[in-house]
């Protein structure tokens, strides 16, 4: 609660400080403006994430989807995870501690919270570096600060280095002069328990300064749900109910920019996420009613960019990141109140990067960058604490090097052969080549590269072929952690990075003015996949190991339609991922990857009724069946669990939202009201669990939101 008051006070101070700054009343793209946007305009939305410089989606040498801030508002997304779950090729499951996002047929599995992708805010890595997890719940960033989310499926280590493994999520923030100053508040009923949120966004510009402040605090109670037994098991009965499953995420994002043509652009930004979750569905402490994971994760960054001379741009940034548990964290693995678990864990990260680019003309350019990162880790150590406060270090794990140092150098060339070499017959072809070398003091040298060709078949139609490599580095927790309870997960200091190589082909464009599409097929091979494995050796502890290879292929299609007063999307993903591994009894086997559905269909439609000042949004998702976790399949069939596995049922979920536009409840000021009903049909469904049970999805939930623009 102390933090909550602090951020409210900061909000009030900022309002006072900048009360004379003229704020804009609308977002960068207002709902009405968006409706006015043609699909052709939407195809021309510029993105920066594919090659670290502005390009239109149709030109970008990657499979890119974009969710705009306006779409976030119209669809009522309360977190980045919710927004991503509307995109083809992404599947978000949860344990009510954090969302766990899988991508293209692959989920990170046990204790992996969305660590298969790199998540950035304006290009800055935002993972919790001790574990490389990405916490995508409302604590990541206030949703009102988001200009757009650029979503790249496929490898990007050739530019971004480690952890840009199977995708990159880059959250682009608004500028101060583009936000509508507002306070939002929602109250809701989640599965008959309460939900509450207070969000603020303030910004403005004066002279050459631009300032943005945003914050969000939520309190969501996921209690009242019960573990779902593995088929054939009766461990959990009707009386086993989550009693304390509350989540209190807090997000703060602040950005100050000074920009002048002669000076260049100087930006300072700060983001802080607090995860404060009573987690009842963790693998090591289910329904103990006394787990409270409380983590702090933040960065402060200063960036300076300037065009030194014509066509030669440079930018420099320095970032300090830090993360740790907050004092009142309690990890409780049983119902015994006389002892519990605490942990020591922290990191301090320092990133320095320098990038340059020289543009020969509008298309052809050359980029070079160098970056250095040092992460100073206090590796995860769990302690058993008794009622007298005596802390005893739990065994397991190993001491490791505390400083993780990485230096990376990348080169990138974008080349239109026709313009560069005067080959007119290739005038519609643009080639991109990228190469990056990383040296890390723990796991050594890693080379990554990327080649792409984009060919314009017509003005608004392009086809792309891309090939690239990527890697995911083992984290401090995976390497060195001791265990929470005997038999629990311990680190493995011998882990190597996971490596991937991906071949993609895409066709995208506009069929006619009311419809655009984006289709692709891909094939990915992953070597040395890291998994938390049931052990085969002499001890019972689960450890992370490089044990398997994955071969994954899939097809993804997205359609955006703009007809009458409707803005619609529909997408379909088919993923076939095969895991190849050694099983001592069966030898080399190939089996479908667990946890991920083969088929997903997602759709949404916003019906704009300007005469009635309302928008009506409906979104649906169909998820086909998915194979349960290895851990649960061991319970299901302790002998043949590698090949005799049960599946979680397919499900269909429908969400509904009705929201107002431009109500003038207070004179000269806009008000927005909305009612959102999630899981309108009350579908029963389950997410994969990792400890003798699967995790129930939420039933019908209601949210009433009030936003006041000032």
């Amino acid at each position: 609660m102390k933090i909550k008051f602090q951020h409210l006070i900061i909000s009030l101070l900022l309002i006072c400080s900048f009360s004379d700054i003229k704020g804009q009343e609308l977002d960068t793209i207002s709902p009405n403006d968006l409706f006015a946007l043609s699909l052709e305009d939407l195809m021309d939305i510029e993105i920066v994430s594919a090659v670290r410089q502005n390009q239109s989606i149709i030109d970008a040498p990657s499979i890119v989807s974009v969710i705009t801030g306006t779409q976030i508002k119209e669809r009522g997304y309360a977190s980045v995870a919710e927004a991503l779950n509307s995109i083809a090729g992404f599947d978000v499951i949860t344990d009510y501690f954090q969302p766990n996002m899988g991508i293209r047929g692959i989920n990170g599995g046990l204790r992996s919270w969305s660590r298969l992708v790199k998540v950035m805010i304006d290009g800055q890595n935002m993972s919790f570096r001790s574990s490389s997890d990405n916490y995508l719940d409302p604590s990541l960033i206030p949703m009102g600060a988001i200009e757009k989310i650029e979503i790249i499926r496929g490898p990007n280590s050739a530019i971004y280095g480690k952890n840009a493994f199977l995708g990159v999520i880059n959250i682009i923030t608004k500028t101060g002069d583009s936000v509508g100053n507002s306070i939002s508040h929602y109250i809701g009923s989640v599965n008959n328990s309460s939900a509450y949120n207070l969000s603020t966004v303030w910004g403005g510009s004066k002279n050459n300064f631009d300032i943005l402040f945003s914050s969000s605090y939520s309190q969501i109670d996921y209690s009242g749900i019960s573990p779902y037994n593995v088929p054939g098991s009766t461990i959990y009965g009707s009386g086993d109910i989550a009693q304390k499953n509350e989540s209190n995420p807090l997000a703060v994002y602040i950005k100050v920019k000074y920009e002048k043509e002669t000076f260049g652009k100087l930006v300072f930004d700060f983001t802080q996420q607090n995860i404060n979750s009573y987690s009842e569905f963790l693998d090591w402490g289910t329904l103990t009613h006394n787990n409270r994971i409380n983590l702090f994760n933040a960065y402060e960054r200063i960036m300076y960019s300037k065009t030194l001379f014509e066509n030669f741009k440079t930018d420099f940034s320095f970032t300090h990141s830090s993360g740790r548990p907050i004092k009142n964290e309690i990890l409780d693995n049983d119902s015994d109140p006389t002892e519990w678990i605490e942990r020591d864990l922290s990191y301090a990260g320092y990133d320095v990067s320098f990038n340059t680019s020289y543009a020969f003309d509008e298309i052809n350019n050359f980029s070079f960058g160098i970056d250095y990162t040092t992460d100073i880790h206090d590796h995860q150590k769990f302690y058993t604490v008794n009622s007298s406060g005596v802390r005893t270090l739990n065994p397991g794990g190993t001491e490791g090097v505390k400083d993780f140092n990485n230096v990376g150098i990348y080169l990138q060339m974008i080349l239109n052969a026709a313009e560069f070499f005067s080959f007119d017959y290739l005038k519609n072809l643009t080639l991109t080549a990228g190469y990056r070398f990383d040296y890390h003091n723990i796991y050594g040298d890693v080379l990554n590269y990327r080649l792409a060709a984009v060919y314009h078949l017509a003005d608004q139609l392009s086809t792309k072929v891309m090939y690239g490599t990527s890697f995911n580095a083992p984290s401090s927790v995976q390497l060195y952690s001791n265990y929470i309870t005997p038999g629990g997960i311990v680190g493995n200091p011998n882990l190597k990075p996971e490596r991937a190589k991906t071949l993609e082909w895409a066709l995208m464009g506009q069929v006619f003015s009311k419809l655009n599409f984006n289709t692709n097929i891909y094939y990915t091979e992953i070597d040395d996949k890291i998994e938390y494995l049931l052990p085969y050796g002499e001890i019972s502890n689960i450890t992370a190991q490089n044990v398997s290879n994955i071969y994954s292929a899939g097809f993804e299609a997205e359609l955006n339609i703009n007809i009458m007063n409707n803005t619609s999307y529909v997408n379909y993903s088919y993923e076939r991922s095969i895991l190849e591994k050694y099983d001592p009894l069966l030898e080399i086997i190939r089996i479908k990857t667990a946890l991920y559905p083969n088929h997903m269909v997602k759709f949404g439609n916003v019906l704009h009724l300007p005469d009635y000042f309302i928008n009506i949004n409906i979104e649906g998702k169909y998820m086909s069946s998915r194979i349960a976790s290895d851990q649960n399949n061991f319970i299901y069939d302790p002998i043949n669990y590698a090949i005799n596995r049960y599946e979680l049922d397919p499900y269909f979920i429908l969400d509904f939202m009705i929201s107002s536009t431009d109500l003038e409840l207070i004179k000269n000021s806009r008000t927005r009201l909305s009612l959102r009903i999630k899981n309108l049909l009350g579908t029963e469904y389950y997410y994969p669990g990792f400890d003798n049970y699967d995790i129930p999805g939420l039933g019908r939930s209601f949210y009433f939101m009030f936003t006041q623009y000032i």
Partner: protein
Amino acid sequence: MILFISLVIFQLIGCEKLNEDYNKLIYKNPIKIAVIGDVSIGREVAENIFFATKMAADEINSSGGLIINEEEREIELIFKNSGGDPEIGIDVVNELIDEGINIIVGPTTSAVAVEMSESCVANNILMITYSATIPKLSYMNDDDLIWRTCPSDAFSGTIMAKHSIDSMQLKNGAIFFRDDNFGNSMANIIQNKFESLGGSILATSSYPAEETDLNNYNFGNELDILLQQKPQIIFAAVFEEEIGKITQDLWASSLYQDMESKPFLFLTEGGFPNELIANGQPDILETIIGISSSITNTPNYITYENNYIAKYNFSPVTYSEHAYDAIYSIAFAMQKAQSISPEDIKQNLRLVTGSEDLREESAIINVNEFEKARVLLLTGFEINYEGASGKINFDINGDPYSTFVIWGLVNKEYVEFSYYNL
């Protein structure tokens, strides 16, 4: 259309890699042997036992298999889980009867073995357990169908008592045990032997072994019952699964902390060292000793261990060598008998593993020498299999020659202190 093209391309680029393959193995004229483990309650032990039996079967099959009545035959293992539950064990026996399998290697635990053995005898099924150590199995009216390749607790309990009093000069003891067949039986043996040698058992205490999550169980109360009496040594009839938590709760006890001279913890099993190093409370590791039937410094064990590591890339666990020897013993008996019936196997098991009558004239067969043994047996010679666990020499009760080691941990390294033969 695009989806169709995609599927065609997938087929072209990775046809084989994108298809599931369970690597179903085909056996030549298979002889089916069931290997039963209590996987649900001790996965790391039971699975490694499966792996050891698979290694034995693979070695036998790759050396040409058995030749019975001039027909080449290979061993196919059927793995089953008895779940640490006697009722499940009996269900498994019934399943095997339905599947026409009448040779069993297993199960893991004494509680299951006792119940299963009765069912096996009733149905003329040959059973060789590799780790059920309860003495009761030795004295059953079993029609010679129940065997084991691990020594009986009657022997290990005697040695534990003798070692404590004679070698360690500790006469005040306590007993901590699982409340199941194995734990109760072991507690009785140790108490009787210890007291008969002049020692005194000051207290005993047990904990629930069934339907309890022993990784998260608080053993504090049960341990304090013993610690109040200030024993010099605590005999612990416990399993690997719970040993880590037991050591932590022992360390957390204020009674333990207040004791000037910390009691030794004497474990009745051998499979603990790595589990203790990984999950045990580090400060008390050097007060722990144990007894084991795995003698790891013999040439045959070293060969077995090296082959195991080469095949699986991790080390074998205690009792896996007994399971490995069970498969070989059965295979040799079948080869000698030229038959796969339990009736013929039981009559030949002693003859191929060091029968007193034939010992002088038998050729010693070591680990992974099936081909040599087959040639000898087919040409009328006698063999004496000395396995990974050492001499087998089955006695009249179907128990093996028993060798024990007293082990401990020094600087987190496994150390063998002394050896005993019976």
